């Protein structure tokens, strides 16, 4: 029996190159580091957790002004473990912003953004902006007073840009007012557009990290 599994694994490995993948992705050599080096992986974990709990929330959430609030009440009070799934997504969102920012500060402090990792940094900036965008679009979805007014204010701030402000405001709201269109486009951005971009940028970010390996901490020579 043991032989069977061994053979099966080897069969797969010869075709998929599993060992090679494992060594390059998970068992690659790292310079001496510390816990601060784990924050990128922590960001990744939180991102995946948000994706999983977010998908579960869409099973019941309804992005219409008539039902958004009620559907969330339903999740919280009637669906088994609804409070848990929503709780993780809610607190995970804030935690993720925090962790991503600290991760950025760490790569700044250790000067990891220098040659050849400038692109890793730039892609990271994109990821930070997208993370904030997820927070902004997600905040409207419960459609309660706080969400409504936060988005009123947020889009109004975007509207204060000189010359094109009015256009940005209309593009964000899908018209002059906060409406069903605003809720619907924030929902689309929150579950499709921004996550798709994040998956792409995270893929690039990770590719660059594996390609260049992790940076050494600067020492006296630097």
């Amino acid at each position, binding site marked *: 029996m043991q032989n069977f599994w061994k053979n099966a694994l080897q069969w797969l490995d010869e075709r998929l190159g599993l060992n090679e993948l494992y060594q390059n992705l998970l068992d690659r050599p790292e310079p001496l580091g510390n816990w601060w080096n784990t924050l990128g992986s922590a960001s990744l974990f939180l991102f995946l*957790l948000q994706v*999983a*709990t977010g998908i*579960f929330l869409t*099973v*019941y959430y*309804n992005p219409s002004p008539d*039902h958004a609030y*009620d*559907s969330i*009440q*339903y999740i919280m009070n*009637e*669906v*088994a*473990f*609804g409070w*848990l*799934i929503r709780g*993780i997504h809610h607190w995970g969102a804030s935690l993720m912003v925090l962790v991503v920012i600290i991760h950025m500060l760490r790569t700044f402090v250790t000067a990891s953004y220098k040659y050849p990792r400038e692109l890793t940094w730039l892609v990271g900036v994109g990821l930070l902006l997208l993370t904030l965008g997820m927070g902004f679009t997600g905040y409207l979805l419960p459609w309660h007073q706080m969400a409504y007014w936060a988005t009123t204010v947020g889009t109004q701030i975007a509207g204060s840009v000189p010359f094109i402000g009015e256009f940005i405001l209309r593009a964000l709201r899908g018209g002059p007012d906060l409406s069903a269109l605003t809720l619907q486009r924030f929902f689309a951005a929150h579950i499709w557009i921004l996550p798709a971009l994040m998956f792409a940028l995270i893929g690039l970010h990770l590719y660059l990290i594996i390609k260049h390996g992790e940076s050494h901490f600067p020492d006296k020579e630097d």
Partner: protein
Amino acid sequence: MSGSNRFSRRDFIKVTTGAIGGIIAAGVGIPSIGYLLAPALRQDQAGKSVVVANLSDIPIGIPYPFSFTITRINGWERTANVFGGFILRKSEDPQDLLVLSSRCTHLSCRVNWDEQAGGFLCPCHDAMFDKEGKVVHGPPPEPLGHFEYEIDDAGNITIIPIERKGE
């Protein structure tokens, strides 16, 4: 530490990472199953009885259509579903009644009374039931279901809106 069968530092990290990962996955995964299935596991309440017709309106020997609405709360919304059936007075005797459901016993389309055919026709897969709900032809495996009923002194017919198997 060659030759020693003590756990290496690397193995320790691998096992703890796997274990903690497993605990987190189970912690989110198991509640998620309950979360997804919650509406399916809900217990439905039995419907209240409804008045559907009055005896004096019903001709003898011709199925008389009736309908009623059942409203349930599903999630954040009330869902109203219309159900229906036919009352057949078999004779002058006020107790000699058959209250049939119009739900086809094949795959739940609604059957209609067809005077010319002299039976109930199902539009979905061409089935026919006779006046009393027995299958004449087509795929349905059993006769139309029926409802239990009561008649008060004024002739009002009340049914319990739970379908029973036809005989």
